[in-house]
């Protein structure tokens, strides 16, 4: 293999292409781009073996801004194109960049099957709860009542939860982070990259033109500590500025409840410890609206049945010889017409 020897490790800048970034000034996408470039530098990614695949939407401009290989495909279909790339060459490190409309509306079917098949790729869903590129219509993740050009009286549909959708589809890695939470986001992206199988990362991304501050109830600095639960496998589910709030299972009902350490004889020992291998817990955490659970909600390390698709791809197919092909064409009943 023709590998260019590295004189020094690549930096985040080395993963930026020469193209001028054309998102709206202040868009959350800038922060995500920065985090991804830093992640690739940190993990020592090889740009020649890295492919970014996207669909259509603001987020899907992403590949143009990376110095890796990139394929800007069509609306909703990035998971299908990426599946073909990965099956054809399992050595490639394939990232999919998508949005809430791209992944969950027009491309919902492909997302379902990518996760179900457990194709070994990383999917980043930039969720801004709005259609940005087409100028602000409500999206499948928009909350009921969202006023937009296509729902002037407020949308009447119920939103889909991306993380719950992913868990329902059988995803073995489901994580969440926030565009501006650089340290947290990079940490999550690295774990997503390390996971073998399809990894799904929902990133709350602010669209300051069409849906500004839609996540501010938990992303704003002054509320973040109380409204965000940063989950870590093996650590108690504690949050809050005073680190006294925590989660436990209600004794009389299968649901999570928020308790205060020190109140009513609650001690830290009563707080539930995060187990990322527990799908039921992940589902309850994903469904929680306050606090919002961030980090790796679910990670099933053992290869599941679905990994069969991945392993199929990993088995490099042989190339048939002329003898193989001639034998195939002659298999079964044949007869000779004499000259």
């Amino acid at each position, binding site marked *: 293999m023709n590998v260019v020897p590295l004189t020094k490790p690549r930096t985040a800048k080395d993963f930026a292409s020469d193209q001028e970034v054309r998102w709206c000034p202040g868009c959350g996408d800038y922060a995500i781009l920065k985090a991804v470039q830093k992640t690739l530098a940190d993990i020592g990614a090889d740009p020649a073996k890295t492919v970014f695949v996207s669909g259509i939407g603001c987020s899907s401009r992403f590949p143009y801004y990376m110095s890796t290989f*990139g394929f800007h*495909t069509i609306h909703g279909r990035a998971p*299908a194109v990426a*599946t*073909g790339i990965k099956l*054809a060459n399992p050595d490639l490190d394939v990232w999919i960049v998508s949005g809430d409309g791209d992944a969950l509306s027009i491309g919902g*079917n492909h997302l379902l099957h990518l996760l179900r098949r457990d194709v070994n790729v990383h999917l980043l869903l930039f969720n801004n709860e709005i259609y940005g590129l087409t100028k602000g219509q409500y999206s499948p993740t928009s909350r009921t009542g969202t006023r937009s050009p296509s729902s002037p009286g407020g949308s009447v549909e119920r939103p889909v939860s991306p993380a719950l959708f992913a868990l329902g589809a059988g995803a073995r890695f489901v994580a969440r982070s926030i565009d501006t939470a650089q340290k947290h986001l990079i940490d999550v992206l690295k774990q997503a990259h390390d996971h073998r199988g399809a990894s799904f990362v929902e990133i709350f991304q602010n669209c300051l033109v069409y849906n500004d501050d839609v996540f501010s109830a938990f992303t704003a600095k002054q509320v973040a500590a109380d409204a965000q639960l940063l989950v870590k496998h093996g650590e108690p589910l504690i949050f809050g500025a005073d680190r006294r709030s925590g989660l436990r299972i209600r004794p009389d009902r299968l649901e999570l409840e928020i308790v205060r350490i020190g109140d009513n004889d609650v001690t830290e020992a009563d707080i539930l410890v995060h187990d990322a291998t527990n799908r039921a817990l992940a589902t309850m955490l994903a469904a929680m609206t306050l606090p919002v659970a961030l980090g790796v909600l679910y990670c099933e390390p053992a290869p599941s049945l679905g990994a069969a698709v991945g392993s199929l791809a990993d088995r490099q197919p042989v190339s048939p010889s002329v003898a*193989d092909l001639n034998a195939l064409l002659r298999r079964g*009943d044949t*007869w000779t017409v004499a000259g």
Partner: protein
Amino acid sequence: MITNTLPLANPQPLAAREPLESVVVRFAGDSGDGIQLTGNRFAAVTALAGNDLATFPDFPAEIRAPVGTTYGVSAFQINFGARTIKTSGDSPDVLVALNPAALKVELPRLRPGGLVIVDAGSFAERDLRKAGYAADPRKDGSLSPYRVIEIDISRLTLEAAKPLGLSQHDALRCKNFWTLGLIYWMYDRDRGVTTEWLKKRFVDEPLVAQANIAALDAGHAFGETAELNGELIGYSVAPASLAPGLYRTITGGEALAWGLLVGAHLADLKLFFASYPITPASPLLHALARLRPLGVTTFQAEDEIAAVCSAIGASYAGSLGVTSSSGPGLALKGEALGLAVATELPLVVINTQRAGPSTGMPTKTEQSDLMQALYGRHGESPLAVLAARAPSDCFETAIEAVRIATKFMIPVIVLSDGYIANAAQPWQVPNVEAIPPFPVRFRREADGFEPYSRDPETLARPWAIPGVPGLEHRIGGLEKDSVTGAISYDPGNHQRMTDLRAAKLDRISADIPEQTVEIGRDSGRLAVVGWGSTYGPINRAVSSLIDRGYDVAHIHVRYLCPLPRNMGEVLRRYDRVLVPEMNKGQLVTILRAQYLVPAEGLNKVSGQPFKIDEIEEAVLARLEQPKR
């Protein structure tokens, strides 16, 4: 593997049999009667006996329709002979009807004076009622134009198979092999191959194998005995004079699968095949899935769109991406085909056409997707379109599609149809070593790399696959600069790119063979121009008209887009041009528009192939006088 060298030693003196040049036999029964199996076995031994042949499986869309109903009738037609066989035959000479429903549905096809063999054991009051017969057709005179042989096949099958210990129900299921035994006797076919096949097929159920063999033998013995009474006549059909070589029978589905695999080999690429199940295209998916041990990656996608998109992804990553479907599925793939055109990636799309619009008649054949293949996309998105003419032609057509797709970096649609996919024909097995290879050269050099620079001859852009250092670049559906591939909204660039994509077709046109005339003079009074599976009936009709002294020629088009560079000139050499198509006039519209020739259409959309007679009549109507 069974290999025979012709001529076969004949077990019976030929003199005892009446010689036939060719004959059309149609097997019909309930969809649970094993009719397709029976027909395929008969085709296999007929091929081994050295006859030329063409088959036409005609089965219902229902997997298991209620027993005995007319919509549950499954049929299999075979035309075989000592002469060259071009079609599965206009009208059967022999109809085997295993129940009243089959008789009711199939009788109108039988030629007057033809032979009907019916299972008398399945004509109870209840069977007649299910088939919708008010009176027993054997008694009301409706069979009088035909020769009728009534045999209680059900009872005779039970007598043969039941002593082996099968239940009444299971023993009766051997009815098809009893019938096959009788037909084998009629046409002097060897039972050995079928006996061996049954043993292998039912290796885990030896009792079932024995029962079917017993039924086969009993049917055969019945023929011998009945002959003594003068009821049945035995025939002999001499071997056809095929070109020397090794032969096998092949269906269109198999030939496409093997052609794609060999095509990928010739291009030095791995084959990636993605498809979503759809009638009548699925046999191709099944055939290729079985070839996984030979390095084929098959992917059953979640839908038609994912199938084409994953194939595009695979091509992008350096495999040969292939997807397949039928008309409704091709419609769904349309947007992605635009992406393949814009990103200039090789892609092969197989469309096994069926009767439309919408769900239409999924098991019936039609040629109504030509316009969709040519124009069914948004924007100016030219791509190449080829059509296979017969099952045996699918192999070469698939290889040619791979060659064009990889040489010109362009999607290629191959049009097959439901008839070609399922029909079988003898095929002279080629030696893969003798087929000229066309290995792909991926871009490896980083120096001077521009993703949209072009080969001056083909206008193909470099195929630069991920994994090669220094070639990192971005492509996509947005319009790109004609050299650098960077996003461009420049008006001049869009004009240039649109022109370049169209010019690729001109380069392909210069690369493909010129249009030839199949049979007949290369100028004259009338040319019959066809494409796809109308080949057989057109060719037979034209050759018999030429034999009768008429000035007519047959031209058959494989390259539908771009058309061969001499096409207009060829058409203008004839006074009249007739274009038979199983659609409302799609190729004829193209020919008229492109060459301003007064071509006329001959159109049929009944879900059934053209009959030779229909084409002969249409030609004769335009050539009132014989000319010599």
